[in-house]
């Protein structure tokens, strides 16, 4: 991030707690426009909780989330704005099985943004084409492969034309081959300048695509650095241990 640019997304001292048990402790992070940040770390490190706190699926128990300098969460209006500007892709896709791919993608443009149906349909079709699935527009998710379902889910989030995309282990539910097609789609997005925060266990993706990698363990940010530096030359013993274990497989 260049010093003069204002961060698009700011996490300031964010804590996340489930029933009084804190799982994310005091995380602060700036994400610049166009930046791709990978969150890595062992299971239970609080990566997904942190990601879910960013769009208030799990409202932070402490700390602030700022989008373009505006604090979120004080009012319904800022929350609505956040949900419009931040897209989310889930590990389990969460497509709506009773709707076709196209209907899944046009749902939010039509009902959240209130676009006329034709316009919503056009926009949805554009995004399906973008992820290479125009020919699956009329298929129900159940008839699509896991990789296709996740790409439809990406198109669904993109159809809101968000400023930031959050990915919560988008390939964890997929076999490596299907995961690869999802990663290719995400690579394309990153190449187009989309701002992305990605929780992932795909170390190659973190190293090749992310600008910055944040390593978390036990609810803390242990280390963060540019992708190349953190992945090749981790400073903290905990990071070294994790990366050795992952690469040793």
């Amino acid at each position, binding site marked *: 991030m260049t010093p003069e640019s204002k961060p698009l997304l700011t996490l300031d001292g964010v804590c996340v707690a489930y029933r009084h048990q804190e799982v994310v402790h005091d995380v602060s992070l700036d994400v610049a426009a166009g930046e791709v940040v990978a969150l890595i770390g062992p299971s239970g490190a609080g990566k997904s909780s942190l990601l879910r706190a960013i769009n208030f699926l799990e409202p932070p128990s402490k700390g602030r989330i700022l989008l373009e300098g505006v604090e979120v969460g004080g009012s319904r209006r800022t929350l609505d704005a956040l949900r419009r500007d931040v897209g989310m892709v889930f590990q389990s896709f969460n497509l*709506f099985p*009773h709707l076709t791919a196209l209907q899944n993608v046009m*749902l939010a443009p039509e009902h959240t943004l209130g676009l006329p149906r034709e316009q919503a349909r056009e926009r949805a079709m554009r995004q399906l084409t973008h992820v290479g699935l125009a020919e699956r527009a009329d298929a129900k998710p159940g008839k699509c492969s896991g990789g296709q379902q996740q790409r439809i889910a990406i198109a669904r989030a993109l159809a809101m034309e968000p400023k930031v995309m959050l990915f919560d282990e988008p390939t964890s539910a997929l076999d490596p081959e299907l995961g690869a097609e999802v990663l290719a789609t995400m690579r394309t997005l990153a190449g187009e300048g989309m701002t992305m925060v990605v929780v992932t266990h795909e170390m190659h993706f973190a190293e090749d695509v992310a600008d910055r990698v944040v390593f978390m363990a036990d609810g803390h940010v242990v280390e963060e650095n540019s992708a190349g530096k953190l992945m090749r030359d981790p400073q903290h013993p905990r990071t070294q241990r994790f990366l050795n274990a992952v690469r040793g497989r």
Partner: protein
Amino acid sequence: MSTLNEWQDYLPDYLDGLKVTLRLTGVSLAGGLPLGLLLALAMTARRRTVRWPAILLVEIGRGAPALVVLYFVYYGLPQLDLTWSSFVCAAIALGFTTAAYTADIFRAGINSIPVGHREACQALGLSHGQELRLVVLPQAIRVVIPPLIGFCILLYQGTSLAFAVSVPELLSRAYSQASITYQFTSTLVLAGLVYAAISLSAVALMRARWPGRTASVTDVEPPGEGLARTTEVTHAP
């Protein structure tokens, strides 16, 4: 042979009774199903002040025998200056029972929708109402249709309780015939056959439409009930 001849004599009267039975079933469902859905929505609401009264009402409806509810409406409410015809009383009582039982079926259907779908709706900025209308209910309805049909069949047979407040439905026709001829066995068997003809055709229709789904009248627990219970526990305030 004589039984068949008797039955031939009974049948026109029985069919009149069947019309009343079917009308009572229809009216109870027309009132009870929408109310059941409303109660289910209230039971799954976030606010306790909405949730608790609905749960109380449903537990009363499921806990009290339908006959007790019926007597309450027919004999109890007139003491509060609320008096209706026996048919209306039966429809109110059975409609209330229907609402209570189907509320629980609807609730289980609503809770069977994965939490992730609701989170996806929130992440897409849909309002709570849009989430229900566009994503949760369309899926839940599909889940609950088989158990709802099971309940409708139970209710159809349950309308025979209205005999107790002298609604001229099918069972009451059988009973009046029997009180004239003293042929209790043949009159009641014929009544049973007429009930069964409708119930079993409904089951057969349902089996043809949803193969592999149980339509047994005792099976009103929808699939996903187990899941529903677990999600409920994890999301309890």
